[in-house]
């Protein structure tokens, strides 16, 4: 790819909320794995609740956030993916193919969090906030799937990292823009339209409120006492 094609100076492509969600999520997934393997099931549960907050926030921000954060800008049909693979795509943000990876990752993490919410540990010491809404058998089953499902997340993360390395070998840096928020963009590409900071705060408040309600066991349907 000719360098002059991209030499338009670095432009914003990812807003702060998108970058924060990305790196916090990566850190919390690693922490969730570490904590549950080191007898810190209580930390594992809180980590899952934090991930749930991120997921809800990101979902809301996907409707009212910056242009590259919005699902409407990056969720495309198979036709767009085909065009992209043939080199006929010059937008900013998630590529039509990368968008599939984003949806798969967020979807897999959402499944994992949902399973964790209704799970219970094998000793009956730790329970997920919503485990009281289902039977003991269901909680045990959910925990089994929760353990297996982690492999799905691992696979998607591996694919994600492999794709980054693949693009890197072809001369495109994807990691740095996710840190700085800026990247070279095609001269003809639409620049990113940023979101409003107070809208981000409202999204954050709403996601915290929802998780707060879930952490109480989703009253009046249930009741949950956090691990002491």
């Amino acid at each position, binding site marked *: 790819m000719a360098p002059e094609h991209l030499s338009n100076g670095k432009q914003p492509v990812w807003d702060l909320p998108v970058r924060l969600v990305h790196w916090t999520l990566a850190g919390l997934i690693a922490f969730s794995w570490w904590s549950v393997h080191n007898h810190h099931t209580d930390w594992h549960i809180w980590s899952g609740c934090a991930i749930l907050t991120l997921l809800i926030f990101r979902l809301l921000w996907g409707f009212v956030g910056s242009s590259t954060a919005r699902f409407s800008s990056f969720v495309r049909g198979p036709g767009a993916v085909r065009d992209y693979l043939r080199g006929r795509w010059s937008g900013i943000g998630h590529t039509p193919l990368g968008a599939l990876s984003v949806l798969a990752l967020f979807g897999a993490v959402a499944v994992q969090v949902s399973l964790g919410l209704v799970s219970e540990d094998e000793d009956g*010491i730790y329970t997920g906030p919503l485990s009281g809404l289902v039977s003991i058998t269901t909680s045990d089953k959910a925990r089994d799937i929760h353990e297996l499902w982690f492999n799905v997340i691992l696979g998607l993360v591996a694919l994600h990292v492999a794709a980054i390395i693949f693009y890197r070998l072809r001369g495109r840096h994807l990691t740095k823009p996710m840190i700085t928020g800026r990247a070279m963009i095609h001269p003809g590409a639409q620049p990113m339209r940023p979101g409003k900071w107070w809208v981000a705060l409202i999204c954050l408040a709403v996601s915290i409120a929802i998780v707060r309600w879930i952490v109480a066991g989703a009253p009046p349907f249930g009741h949950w006492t956090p691990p002491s």
Partner: protein
Amino acid sequence: MRIAPIAFAFSALLLSACGGPETSQGNNSQANISTDSHSPATANASGATNSMVMLAAAPPKDLALKIMHDRHEAMEGLGKAMKALHRELESGKPDITVVRAQTATMASTAAKIPSLFPAGTGPEVGKTRAKPEIWKQQDVFVRKARDFQAAAQAIDAAAKSGDLNQVMASHDSLDKACKSCHDPFRAPEH
């Protein structure tokens, strides 16, 4: 030379467990072990010397596997009682009879734990999550088992007295006793 006092303490505990009230309750898995004439539990009853021999010499493989199976069942039963108790206490309107059934299971099973881990029933014999550390640090293991037994008896006593607040208060130390033994002495599931 350090093994002698440990072995003695362990066999003394085995004896006390055998002589305890749980034997008279005729609980299933206890009965399983006792009906076997080669079982360490029966051997123990005949005296401290025998039980020390039992600890020094590993049981034959078929008996070891049987003990391990009974142990698995006992621990699983304990887990089920823990879960049922947790649900009941979280339900908002705990039924004392349900609570009592769980704590009774816990107290009787907890008393059996030391006798369910004779030497020669570790991962070298068959599939088990019991770590070799149980027998390397037997004094620590036995102390933790005893702590758990005390916690289980406390919550059972609270349940028997019908004091739900006391049951709630004892629940936390019961959880901690489970965890403090599982963390160092139980291997991960996979």
